[in-house]
């Protein structure tokens, strides 16, 4: 298995998380967490995963792949994603009434949920991610 994307994502999250929360503490930045629900986040996430697994690109890396000449990304992935987004916009009014708001929990963050200071979450998560990356590098590649 190729762990490149996992390594990129996890290291971006550690670096981003520390800086963004530091700037927020200094009053220089604001957070914009997305709201979520079981009906939207879990079901949508699983559907996304199936498409991601079939295609082999995520939306961002797909745009990058087009930039380096991948024609399957341009004529397959990008066109498909535009069609998918269009289909979703058609389905949206019905989904919004029946599914998307099921199990709504709003713009919740882990520090709010656990009632902890954000650094009490950031530091252990950063250590956990570093340990995971170490394990991946050591044993899985």
């Amino acid at each position: 298995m190729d762990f490149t994307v996992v390594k990129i994502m996890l290291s971006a999250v550690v670096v981003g998380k520390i800086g963004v929360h530091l700037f927020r503490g200094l009053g220089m930045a604001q957070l914009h967490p997305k709201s979520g629900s079981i009906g939207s986040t879990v079901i949508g996430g699983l559907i996304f995963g199936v498409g991601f697994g079939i295609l082999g690109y995520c939306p961002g890396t797909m745009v990058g792949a087009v930039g380096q000449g991948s024609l399957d990304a341009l004529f397959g992935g990008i066109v498909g994603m535009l069609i998918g987004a269009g289909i979703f916009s058609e389905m949206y009014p019905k989904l919004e009434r029946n599914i998307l708001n099921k199990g709504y929990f709003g713009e919740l963050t882990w520090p709010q949920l656990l009632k902890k200071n954000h650094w009490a979450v950031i530091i252990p998560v950063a250590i956990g991610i570093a340990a995971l990356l170490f394990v991946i590098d050591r044993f899985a590649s």
Partner: protein
Amino acid sequence: MEWLIMERWSPYVVGFGIGLLSWVTFLLSDKAIGCSTAFSRTSGMIERLFRGARTEAKPYYKKFAPSVDWEWMLVVGVFIGAFLSAELSGQFQGQWVPTKWAETFGNTPFTRWIVALIGGTIMGIGARWAGGCTSGHGISGTLQLAVSSWLAVICFFIGGVATAMLMYNVLS
């Protein structure tokens, strides 16, 4: 300047760079990095060419107007950056079938095109359903410690790994 013409950077360097980029976007633009909303807006812009004002009246496009915005330009930037990087390292090459795909499923462009089209369509529906993709939820949301984004990423990988295993182990 040799790093500019390298074929590949360490994934940790890339991740560090994306992390720094998120500092800059929060500080200067008050925005988080994302990608999939740009596809919705583009889809809406194309639909508008055919259906005009009826497109703009759709509830979804009232929320996400079909027009060029900050994130749309970020996606254009990703394309330009990838192109420059590929050109500088001499890697730019028109290719229909990715190498890993060809090893398992053969080198037929038509098969790969159909599968990519289907995968892309499902991914497009899922990204909008979940309210974000591997960028908006996977990087920006998780770094803000949003519960929705951590949950989304877990579901992305459950769906993705299960599907990829099925395709590469069972179907091939």
